[in-house]
């Protein structure tokens, strides 16, 4: 048995580009103008520098571990992670309204950031079991249970954003054979929801009926009329219940967030302030940006949470369109690279895990950047490798480098 340790250097390089570029922007966003050390521990950039150094240590450790370790201990890691989430209800520390942290002196850890990797391992373990067949309803329910258990524990913190990320596991499930029907249903519900808010139930119902008829005539193998009828009816009912859900089940802040993205409400001083200011910051960057540490929006702290969730607006303001497209391209390269890596895995465990990493990084990317540039409602989740925060950085580093390790050892014999 020969162990090859051919780690994927492209992934590692892309990782470091993102982390270092991220730190530069955190420095700029939290830099107060006074001449201090880059490692000033009173400043976010100083702390982040330490987090980065520690994550290098973490990477060495992760890559040094036996790759079989991850598969073997997946269940235990997962259960440990669930316990850490449950423990928050008792020992959790509340920071800005969310009980998501364990405090160790001046230092806090956010277990939900680590739960993603744990869930990915557990799902990979479950799906790679010879007895598991994703096409059966029983195993589908089993998978959903693994995925949504942590999400359900995270929602009441409250941190709905982090819970939303668990939709990322649709990527591996779909890859492993989950019927596309689920995706279509999910996408349709989202589409109906948004269209109903914009156009109203009547129009949406008419569109649904029209699409049903088209579907019926264009499908070579004609689906049964009752089946399509039930689906259409369900769609129309959902459309009519959207207003009820929106007005009664949603909280005002959620409604506001939707209304802003849909352009129904413009309130640049109140609820729309963040989005508005971050768009001003990005828009004012122009082609080349205002230069590192020269952003006036950034310096004036006009964008709240700029070094965390809104860090991308600093890129926009100070590095301009060149900087933002550079980031998008680097990040996209990383995602595509992960896709390629996931596909070349021989073991199902590795592949499911790879797709989970891809899904999680993708969802974070879409939701975070989409929010900052005003295409998505405000959902507070960090930009992986980029946003300020130790737990986040380490959580994503663990997630990614477990896969780098698995990929590095893919050629070794399987037992």
């Amino acid at each position, binding site marked *: 048995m020969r162990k090859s340790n051919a780690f994927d250097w492209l992934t590692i390089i892309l990782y470091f580009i993102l982390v270092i570029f991220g730190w530069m922007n955190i420095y700029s966003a939290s830099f107060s103008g006074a001449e201090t050390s880059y490692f000033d521990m009173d400043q976010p950039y100083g702390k982040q520098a330490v987090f980065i150094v520690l994550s290098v240590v973490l990477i060495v450790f992760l890559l040094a571990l036996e790759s079989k370790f991850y598969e073997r201990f997946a269940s235990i890691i997962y259960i440990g992670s669930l316990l850490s989430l449950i423990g928050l209800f008792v020992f959790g520390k509340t920071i800005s309204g969310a009980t998501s942290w364990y405090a160790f002196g001046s230092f806090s850890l956010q277990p939900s950031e680590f739960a993603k990797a744990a869930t990915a391992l557990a799902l990979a373990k479950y799906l790679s079991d010879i007895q598991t067949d994703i096409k059966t309803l029983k195993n589908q329910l089993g998978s959903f249970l693994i995925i949504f258990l942590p999400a359900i524990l995270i929602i009441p913190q409250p941190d709905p954003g982090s819970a939303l990320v668990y939709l990322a596991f649709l990527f591996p499930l779909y890859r492993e054979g989950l019927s596309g029907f689920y995706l279509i249903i999910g996408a349709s519900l989202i589409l109906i929801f948004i269209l109903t808010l914009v156009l109203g139930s009547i129009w949406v119902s008419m569109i649904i009926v029209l699409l049903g008829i088209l579907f019926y005539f264009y499908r070579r193998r004609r689906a049964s009329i009752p089946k399509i009828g039930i689906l259409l009816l369900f769609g129309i009912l959902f459309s009519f219940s959207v207003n009820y859900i929106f007005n009664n089940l949603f909280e005002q802040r959620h409604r506001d967030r939707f209304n802003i993205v849909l352009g129904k409400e413009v309130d640049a001083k109140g609820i729309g302030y963040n989005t508005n200011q971050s768009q001003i910051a990005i828009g*004012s960057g122009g082609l080349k940006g205002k230069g590192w540490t020269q952003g*006036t929006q950034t310096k004036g702290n006009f964008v709240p949470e700029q070094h965390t969730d809104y860090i991308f607006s600093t890129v926009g303001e100070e590095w301009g369109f060149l900087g933002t497209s550079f980031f998008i391209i680097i990040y996209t390269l990383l995602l595509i690279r992960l896709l390629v890596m996931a596909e070349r895995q021989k073991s199902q465990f590795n592949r499911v895990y790879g797709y989970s990493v891809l899904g999680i990084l993708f969802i974070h990317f879409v939701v975070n950047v989409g929010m900052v540039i005003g295409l998505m409602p405000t959902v507070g989740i960090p930009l992986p490798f980029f946003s300020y925060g130790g737990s986040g950085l380490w959580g994503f580093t663990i997630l990614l480098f477990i896969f780098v390790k698995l990929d590095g050892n893919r050629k070794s014999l399987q037992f």
Partner: protein
Amino acid sequence: MRKILPLTIIVLTSLVFIGRLFYLQIVDTSYAVLSANNAIKIEYNYPQRGYVFDRNGELLVANQPSYDVMVIPRQVKPFDTLEFSTLLNISKEFLIERLDKAKVYSPRLPSVVIPQLTKDEFAYLKEKLRKFEGFYIQKRSLREYHVSHSASVLGYISEVTDSEVKSMKYYNSGDNIGRSGVEKQYEEVLRGIKGVKYIQKDNFNREIGPYKSGTLDTLPVRGKDITLTLDARLQAYAEKLMQGKRGGIVAIEPQTGEILSLVTAPYYDPALLVGRKRSKNFTRLWYDTISKPLFNRPLQAMYPPGSPFKALTGLVALEEGVINTSDKVDCHHGFYYGRNARMGCHNHPAPLSITPALAHSCNAFFAKSHMKIINKFDTSVEGMDAWNKHMKSFGLGDYLGNDLPVGQPGRIPDGDYYTRKYNTKRWYSTYTLSSGIGQGEVLTTPIQLANVTAAIANRGWFYTPHILKEIDGKPIKDKDFTVKNMTTVKPANFEPIIEGMHDVYRYGTAYSLRIPDIEICGKTGTAENFIRLNGKKTQLTDHSIFIAFAPKDDPKIAIAVFIENGYWGSRYAGKIASLMIEKYIKDEITRTDLEDWILSHSLEDEYAKPYSGEPFKINQ
């Protein structure tokens, strides 16, 4: 399919993001402005406006501090408008109106609410202003006049208008700009350059430090001091002499073209147009349409020059060779130039040659000389054009090009003018006779006439009259004022004319106005004039006109005086010119009786006549 779908989703998402970013950052350019608006505050630092001195270094205009109440509408929190307006001593409605105006101008840029508080008003307000958020005090400097004369020359400054803010980049709402006189003409010299400070603000609108470490900031540059060519003592004396009269005085130093005195009457104290009372006083001056104090007579009033013009006619006739110094013309109380056509003349010895003819102001001699000039040419049109060219070389018939912001071209007709007037080219020199004696079509401004006098004093050349002598102590180098303008008349031809003007004092029309020990040359003038009164052309008492220069052989001063409705030339204008010359050359007045006469005689009754509503007599 299951492998392609994730790739498609990833790539599509990235493309959508890049597209959106392209729109935000490249296509839509409004964000840069929005960003500058909320993150950068611009603060101006106003420099001192330059001082103004007279030719002898006497300080005429300086600065005094004043305090503007400013507002940044965006920062205003609801406040007690009644209390604040009481504090500012204005009405509540006016305050609200000013605030609305400020908001329209810009919600984030400072606007002036109440300009130019005095020190005392400021001291009172300072304590209480803290209560009213969004308001602050900006210190600025106001003009401070050290003299009470020369308002029309010095001009005044006032707040820029909205349209000026839009059209001129330098100015912001509430800035001052020169409105007339040298304040307007030399605005850019006097105003200096505003300093700019860019300040980075944070989301609570707090100032957190200089923007870009202050690399874009500039320091204010103080306005330059200017020295005028005016003689303040002469100027003060001139206004004293002009009390109760309307008209203008222009005195020029012939060797340099420097304007020694420039007076319009009625005049006002320049201090009237400073500070908060400016607007009220200005309105009062503006609406005085009868005495028109804002009408700068020496520069803007076009009068028929009258008899002084005969000197020019004589010069051109000599230059064209149509007369010589011994040619005599007879005069029997007038000049008969056709059947039943006669130009009247007064009683004087006859026949006369050119020098005594000028001393006695003989109409016949100069009307005939004028005819001879025109008739020298094949057609009257050519003759008139030749005459026009000579006249224009003396700076008549067009803007002089002096450095004061107002002026008038006057009028010197040419051949074309008469062709248009008579609607035919077949007109004769007799049609233009009155132009030869400075009546009829010819119009000049007092400064043009003073310039003609300087050109005669110089025997054939002049510098364009100007008011600016030095900038920050350095003499002006402007070619317009430092290059000689040559007239078309040879120096030799000036002697008989200058002799004639000298004889005006020796035995002629200004015999009574001689100045002991000063060889003076002058010429009286009387110009008929008309106004439209209740729709009817009505003749008023003649204008009194006088030109003079002295000393004869080394001229130091050339002067033109117009007194509206002052009757004959030596009655008012001649006396004033004589006193002015004595004052300037000797710096003392020996003929106090003459001075007393002028100071005690007012023409207000004469000016009131046309508006009395009763029939009145003229030339009494």
